[in-house]
Structures are given as structure tokens and as C-alpha cells.
């Protein structure tokens, strides 16, 4: 939300419009209702600072993964948004190769090594270059990490964090575009987090590292380069966000839109469009997929009576399906319209640019779904 307002402000002040001082005052007035937004940091920097602080605070925390160490190299500004610019920039120089461990390309192997290390007293952060590659290690994430505390009846806990970018980037084809949020969230014993803004990234990552249980931390490659305003509170080294609590990014009364990760940005843009039609959408940033903040979602639905869930993943058994089931179970009589689920297409991600656009949710899809939920007339046939 702040991101959108501050970007708009930049655009308008650049034009030097006469309404400038009024606009600025209005924005400041709005901002003073929330924490004072002082700095803008990129999600990548937020994650990097969180890793840095946690590694400094606790010597048992170490990072391992492919290209986390040396590859941070001399990235000039021109490559700041390269898909290969790592979040671990600068960490190798500060902590050395024994705490920032470059691994060979063996996901199953090094994930297992991470789990073993965490069973025995260390706190590893296992980075996957993308969560697609984590599919080669999923046996260890589920069977070794998630189930060990249970199988050992609390004797051995696994304080590990699995992190990395999740989901489609731009034009990377079927095998690089998988979303795994719903797979991991169906597994008991795991905690699954999906940050959106820099504040989310910092707070949730710190909490994840301090957490005594295995946490799957799903970042998004396309969000790494986006900047969000953060308050001083967020930049403090003890800033943590609790697991299991969602955030209402924008309040509204007509329809609830739930989203996570990159789709929160889309939901917010959709909310802006809906405002012009006098529909006030309440946008919920889930932040935590497992455990889901069911009470917040349900309270919101009790207020608005309509629900739209947005996600990038495949439609069947997605996060939206779980939210829908939860809402129907607890608030059946409050629902005034069927729950609308927006998800990716039910096909592997095509490479062609135009097909990829069709295979992913777009802002217009969210807007249409919200209108449908509010019984506004919407063209029903798919137009070519």
C-alpha cells in the first residue's frame, strides 16, 4: 500500500503539479496514522540484513546452498536485478566460508546434511536456488525435517530454515515455474511462510531463523528487486513478526481478497481499480500459509460476506481451496456469494510469452472475480 502511494507521489512531484503541497500534506497525514515510513529498502536487502543480523547474533546459524558464497562477487549496479544476484551478498566476506557454505549441486545431499546438522545442535539455513530444485530434496524436507520431532516424541527438534525463490519468473519454462506453497503446507510439522514486502521479509525471516521447528520460507524472485518503505522499528535488529498472523494490507467492507507473496501486489492494484466502482475490497496478506490465520480471514469474511482467494499455483488443492473450506465450515451463513478462487492455469507453464500471460493470474482476473462475488455484471464468455 505504501509502495503504491509513495510511487504515485514520486511521479506527481516529478511533474511539478500545482496540487503538490496539498498532495504531500495529505500523504503525510495518512502516513502519520501508521508508523513513520523513513526508508525504502528492497526485499533483497531486507532479507540480506535479516540473515546478517541473525548470523551475527547466533554463531550456530550458518547458511548453505549453491552459489551463496563466492558468486556474490563484484556485482555492479547493472546486475542488481539479475536473477542470479544472491540474497547472501557480502555474507561470505563477513563470516567466512565455514558459515557461508557453497555446496555442490546435490540438493538431496546437502538438504539432508542440513537436517542432520540441525538435529545435532546447529541452526542451518538451507538455500535453494529456486524451490523447483527443492523437489529433489523434498524427501528430506518432509520425511527428515518435518516428522522428526514427532517421531522422536520431542527428543530431537529440527530448527532449520529452507528458503529460496518460489514460483514463476519471466519466461523460464515449465520446470522452473512451479509453486510449492500448497504442497509444503499440507504437511504437518512444517511451518510455511510467504513474505510480500520488505517488512514481511525481514520480520518473518528473523522469526523463522529463531524458530525451533522446520520452516519453509518461500520468497519470490520478481519481488527481490522491489522496494518498500520500512519504519525504524522494522530496521531494529530485534524486529520479528509472529508466525501464523496475517496482515490486513487495506481495509474494506465489500469483499475480502486473500493473497500471498507477489499476488498481494496484484490484489492491491485490483483493490484500487475496484475503488473506482465503489467497491471497497479488504486485502489480506496471508504472510503465513501454514499455519493459516483462519480467525483473521474468517473475521474479515464475517464483515464483508464475500471472498476471493488469489494464488499463482495450480488450481487443484491449492491454498485457496483450504481457505475456502475453512470459511465455508465456519461462516457458511455469512457468505453471500460463492467463494471465487483465482489461480494459475491447470497446465505446466508454457514458454511462449503470450501463453504465459494467460497461464498466470492478472489484475483484471482478480477484479472480475471480485465483481462477480459482488453480483456486478461481468462478461461471462471468454473473449478471444
Amino acid at each position, binding site marked *: 500500500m505504501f509502495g503504491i502511494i509513495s510511487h504515485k507521489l514520486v511521479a506527481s512531484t516529478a511533474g511539478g503539479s500545482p496540487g503538490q503541497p496539498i498532495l504531500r500534506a495529505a500523504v503525510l497525514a495518512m502516513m502519520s496514522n501508521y508508523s513513520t515510513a523513513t526508508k525504502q529498502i528492497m526485499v533483497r536487502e531486507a532479507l540480506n540484513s535479516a540473515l546478517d543480523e541473525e548470523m551475527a547474533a547466533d554463531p550456530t546459524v550458518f547458511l548453505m546452498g549453491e552459489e551463496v558464497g563466492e558468486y556474490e562477487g563484484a556485482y555492479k549496479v547493472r546486475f542488481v536485478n539479475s536473477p542470479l544476484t544472491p540474497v547472501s551478498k557480502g555474507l561470505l566476506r563477513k563470516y567466512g566460508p565455514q558459515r557461508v557454505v557453497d555446496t555442490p*549441486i546435490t540438493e538431496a545431499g546437502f538438504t539432508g546434511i542440513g537436517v542432520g546438522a540441525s538435529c545435532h545442535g546447529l541452526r542451518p539455513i538451507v538455500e535453494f536456488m529456486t524451490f523447483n530444485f527443492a523437489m529433489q530434496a523434498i524427501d528430506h524436507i518432509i520425511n527428515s525435517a518435518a516428522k522428526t520431532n514427532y517421531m522422536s516424541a520431542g527428543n530431537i527438534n529440527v530448527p532449520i530454515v529452507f528458503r529460496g525463490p518460489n514460483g514463476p519468473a519471466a*519466461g523460464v519454462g515449465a*520446470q522452473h515455474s512451479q509453486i510449492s506453497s500448497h504442497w509444503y503446507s499440507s504437511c504437518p510439522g512444517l511451518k510455511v511462510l510467504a513474505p510480500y514486502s520488505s517488512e514481511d521479509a525481514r520480520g518473518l525471516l528473523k522469526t523463522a531463523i529463531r524458530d525451533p521447528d522446520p520452516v519453509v520460507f518461500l520468497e519470490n524472485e520478481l519481488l527481490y528487486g522491489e522496494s518498500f518503505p520500512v519504519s525504524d522499528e522494522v530496521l531494529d535488529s530485534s524486529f520479528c513478526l509472529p508466525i501464523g498472523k496475517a496482515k490486513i494490507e487495506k481495509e474494506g467492507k465489500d469483499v475480502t481478497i486473500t493473497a500471498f507473496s507477489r499476488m498481494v501486489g496484484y490484489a492491491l492494484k485490483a483493490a484500487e481499480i475496484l475503488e473506482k466502482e465503489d467497491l471497497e475490497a479488504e486485502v489480506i496478506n496471508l504472510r503465513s500459509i501454514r499455519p493459516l490465520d483462519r480467525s483473521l480471514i474468517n473475521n474479515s469474511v464475517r464483515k464483508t460476506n464475500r471472498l476471493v482467494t488469489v494464488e499463482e499455483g495450480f488450481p487443484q488443492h491449492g491454498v485457496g481451496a483450504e481457505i475456502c473450506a475453512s470459511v465455508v465450515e465456519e461462516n457458511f451463513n455469512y457468505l453471500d456469494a460463492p467463494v471465487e478462487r483465482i489461480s494459475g492455469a491447470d497446465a505446466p507453464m508454457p514458454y511462449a510469452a503470450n501463453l504465459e500471460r494467460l497461464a498466470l493470474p492478472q489484475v483484471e482476473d482478480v477484479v472480475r472475480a471480485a465483481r462477480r462475488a459482488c453480483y456486478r455484471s461481468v462478461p461471462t464468455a471468454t473473449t478471444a
Partner: protein
Amino acid sequence: MAATAFSASKFTQSFSLNSTRSVDRPPLFPASHPLKTTPSSFLGSTRKLSLSSPSSSTSRRRRRRPSRSPAVVAVSEVVKEKKSKSNVSLSNPLITNEEGLELYEDMVLGRSFEDMCAQMYYRGKMFGFVHLYNGQEAVSTGFIKLLKQEDCVVSTYRDHVHALSKGVPARAVMSELFGKTTGCCRGQGGSMHMFSKEHNLLGGFAFIGEGIPVATGAAFTSKYRREVLKEADCDHVTLAFFGDGTCNNGQFFECLNMAALWKLPIVFVVENNLWAIGMSHLRATSDPEIWKKGPAFGMPGVHVDGMDVLKVREVAKEAIGRARRGEGPTLVECETYRFRGHSLADPDELRDPAEKARYASRDPISALKKYMFENNLASEAELKAIDKKIDELVEDAVEFADESPLPARSQLLENVFADPRGFGIGPDGRYRCEDPKFTEGTAQV
């Protein structure tokens, strides 16, 4: 399972598995190689890091060679001997004029195509991940030009040139890269996922190591068809191409074991270009000599100079011949180099410029040119004609791709299943696929 994995043949006689004598063979990198003498704690790295606490870099330093018993001799030694003898009498070159021109044309096609890809990428016509093959052409040409159409090739994301060598038309590959519907995979696969049933190219995989079990399966099919389905003349061979980073991956070892166990007609070709994105092979591998992993599983392991197409071809002949005769798999390690970064998004700042220059001087295309001139196999004019022909071919491919249409909306849900009834029955009781508009999906963009 038969105890003897090797029958008497010229190729295997060099490889006596049970020998324990230590063979005096030249090391992978000669003593003057900078990688061996650099004092930094990161082998293969150009960066010296100042760390506050001493790291245990001694364990990472190149192992002092213990008394080894590598019972396998690199066949490149055999070829070197042959060649040094034949340099004396120019009447005994390794290839004929036609073969030489064919090899030259294939390598130049690979090189020009990849260069054009880079140009097109920076113009925005190509997108996503594009991994170029410049510098490694000798491996693709050396191996694939010996195959028949029915033989299979399985590759990684660096697969454009494998596709071209195998016979997929340049137009089809370029269209695929542009994401057009005339591409070899109708624009659905992209750079990293080239498939062709006609040319038996089984992919194009994004994850390293993923293609190896698939290749092993194709070899399994070949053997099955011969022995179970009794197709006596089915001697199809499969080639699996992959890199040095893959050789630390579990799937690689699992397949080496099964291929040797069942004597599958496959050749595992390691394109060791020393770098896995920014990770030097020496930093990631406990024993960097990959060819040694073959004998550990009961198959010959060979190391060859991958910048020399003729040496590669000689080794390939032996390995493919072995597989075709039913004698089992071979592991061939080709020492090669990629002149460009890992992908077009890789700034490639970790590799030592001196190393790059050294390998650039061993450019396989220039080397073949030189060989052909020295042995009077081709004239300057012939080679220039080939260069021109390839330039036109690549330009034509770009034009074709440019003018081709984007995939139609109705292609979105096509090809998800071979039998589209897999989409199930819709709310109206009919199969969803029976609705002609179904494959368009429901997005409105």
C-alpha cells in the same frame, strides 16, 4: 549377472579393471596450470579473500597424489600417438574431405546459431533463461555426427547445439526460442526444453542430472526391444550429455550403476567445462577426475580433450561401437570450456581472464580449420563457402521465427495430456475437452 563386463576388443583392452599397477599418466592439469599453483584458499577462484579467522583451506587444497592405481588409460593418449605418427606422413589423416567439411559445417552452425541467440536475446526477442554452448561445439559434433537418426540424445538446458547436431532444423529451434507456434515444441518448451520425436531428442531438462535417468531409460528400451520384443536389429544407442556439476549428483551415480549392471547401450558424456555457474569444479568435487568414476561402477572411464573434435570423434567411435555391440556403457569425460557465461544473465566475473584466453586459443573450429589446411583436406574457398551458407541459414531462421505467429490462445491447455479426457468431466456431465473452447482457459487478458 555375467562377471566379465569386457569382452576382448581394441577399445577395452586398454582398460583392465583388475590391474593394480599405477599407470604413469599425465595429470588432468599440467604442473604449470595456474589452477594448480594459485595460493588462494579458493581453488579455481580469482579472488583472494581476507578472512579474520584462518579457514581450514588446507583440506580444500588439491590433494597430494597418493599412490594411485588408475587402471584406465585415457584413450586420448592412444589417439595422440596415432596422430604424432601420422603427422610424419600426411597421407594418413583421421578424416576424409567430406567428413571434415561435415564436421566443420556442424560446428560453425552451432557457433553462429548461439551468437545469433545472444544478439536476439539482447534485442528482447528471446527471454527467460538462455544457456549458450560457445566453445563446446567439438563435443556435440564429435559425438552426435556419428549417430543414426534412431539413436537418442538427452541433454541439459544447454541443448540448442545438441538439437542442431541431431538434425532439428535451425528454423524450428529459433522459432522455439522466440516462443512461436512453429517451434519444435510449439513454443511451449523454450530454450531449455527442446524435444523432437522425429530426431529422437528426448530433451532438454532444467535440473542437472535429470536427463541422465531418462537417457538410461531410453537405452533400457533399446535393449528391451532387442531382447524381449525380439527386434534383432535394434541396436540403438543413447547419448547422455551433462556437465561437471552433475557428477556430484546422486542420480548420476545411480544411473552409472544400473547402466553397468544391465549393460545398457549408453554413453555418458561429461562436458567438463570446469564451472557450474560460479562454482569451480575443483571446489565442489572431492576427486575432480570424473573419468575415474566409471571403473568404480564397472565401466571404462575415458578422458579426452574436448576442444579437439577429431580426438572426441575417435573416442566416440569406440564408445558408441561398444554400446552398439552390446558390451555396455562408457563414461567419457571431455575437457572443454564455455566461452560465454553460464547463461545470458550471468555476468561471468568469477572466471580468470587468463583461463578464458587459454581456452579461446584452443577454439575447436580454428583447430579443425588448421588441421584441414595442413592435411590438404579442404581449401580456404570451400570453408568460406560453408561459413556463408551457415550465415544465410541462421539469418533465414531468424526471419522465419520473426514472421511466425505467436501460439493461439487455444493452445494453452493443449498437450497437457495425450488423452485430454484426463481433464475430467465437467459440471454438465460431459468431458471437459469436448467443449471446443475449453483449451483456451478462463483468463481474460
